[in-house]
């Protein structure tokens, strides 16, 4: 009974602060309203006995929102978001899109004939999912991860506006790097 009450309260907090994101008039408030929503979801995950995922959700989301607030304020609007501003735009199309997608998903959830369980549940579901996902496909995973990593490194190298030749000179022999802003190591 108590857990139902707590869960419902958290659900209401999550939805209400989600709505608040669009109703408040300040970037900082919108960002931290979203953080509150995520924290409520994180606590709900903990209530499902998903301790690690729940606490990590709280950790990641608060961190993300703290950083996001800076970017939102930096880039949003003509008045770098330090003044009150509306959090919504393009209202009509947003409403149409949101309603349409909601109806589509809800219809899918209600109308699709969900299959009944065949067989019995494994004693440890986490292990079973891990086996099913990784067991026979380990080779694929092993190949994919270095490729993904190489892609990330390559993308960073391509996107980097100032490489090591800019910093250390054509022969890479400069004593201290030429940086627009000094770091702690450059003398």
């Amino acid at each position: 009974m108590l857990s139902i009450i707590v869960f419902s309260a958290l659900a209401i907090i999550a939805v209400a602060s989600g709505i608040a994101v669009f109703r408040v008039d300040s970037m900082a408030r919108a960002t931290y309203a979203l953080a509150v929503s995520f924290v409520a979801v994180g606590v709900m995950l903990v209530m499902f006995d998903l301790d690690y995922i729940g606490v990590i959700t709280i950790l990641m989301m608060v961190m993300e929102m703290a950083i996001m607030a800076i970017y939102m304020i930096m880039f949003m609007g003509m008045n770098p978001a330090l003044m009150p501003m509306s959090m919504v735009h393009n209202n009509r199309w947003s409403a149409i899109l949101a309603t349409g997608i909601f109806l589509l998903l809800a219809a899918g959830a209600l109308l699709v004939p969900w299959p009944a369980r065949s067989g019995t549940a494994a004693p440890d579901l986490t292990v079973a999912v891990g086996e099913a996902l990784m067991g026979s496909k380990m080779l694929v995973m092993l190949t994919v991860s270095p490729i993904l990593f190489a892609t990330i490194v390559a993308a960073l190298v391509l996107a980097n506006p100032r490489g090591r030749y800019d910093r250390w000179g054509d022969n890479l022999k400069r004593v201290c790097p030429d940086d627009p802003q000094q770091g702690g190591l450059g003398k």
Partner: protein
Amino acid sequence: MTGAVMNPAWALLAPVVLGVLALAGAALNGVFVARAEGRPALSGAARPVLEVMRLMRQRRRVTVAADRLLWRIGGMALLVIALLKTAVIPLGPWILADISVGIVWFNAMDVMVWAGMWLIGWGANSAHALAGGYRFLAQAVSYELPLMFALVTPAVAAHSLRVSEVVDAQQDLWFVVWMPVAFLVFCGSVLAFSAWGPFATAAGADIAGGILTEVSGVDRLLIMAGRYALLATGAAFAVALFLGGGSGPLLPDWLWTIVKTLVLLAGFIAVSRRLSAIRPDRLAEVAWIVVLPLALLQTLVVSIIVAVRG
């Protein structure tokens, strides 16, 4: 010591213990300040109590168009976060919530400090305060990753994220002996997330007090108390993770925990006064190019030792 079921009523004692530790830290800092200014040391020790009384009676300073809601939330956040941290910190044989992911819980709470510090800076609608908030976040992205790996290392050695099991794993040898880098990184991070000593530039005098520029009265009291409480919880958690928790001869476990915590807390406060301020923009490069690889190397060494010993 695992699995000791506790009456939840003990949770009421945790704030008292935390308050005493924080007050002890503030008193010690007062002594150092008094000595540096050539006043009698005892007057410095009484300073925190007088400061509490002064701030309790002080009227709030009001600024134009302040974001009062976020400002108040930020103001109380530090103390609340420190209290939430105490849930997973063992005091001798007792621990309020010995959850399976205690170390992750501590980490999640110290990320909450990011939000708290920035909101203090944001709420006042003051340029200096906001600059202080930004400084803290710039510092946070530098210390957080080394801190995470410093937290991971004892967990790897103990095969568990449960704090009581990490303490139990140190029966033979304290973790500080074979993971000194992780210990030092953790101690530095405690100073950093408490915005203390060399990492106090968010509240630096060069920007008129930074996040503290406009806070006054009870708000200021909560923030100052929160910083000392964060220092104290950081010291107590370091005792659990690296210094063998309550283990020690003669004295009971809980007393050893408090003694070790007080010694470490005193160390934090004494050492901080000897170090110069570290600029957050300079810290980033050092933290990511020197400290982070060192912390990773420490984790690697510990992992290999654990794997070899089986």
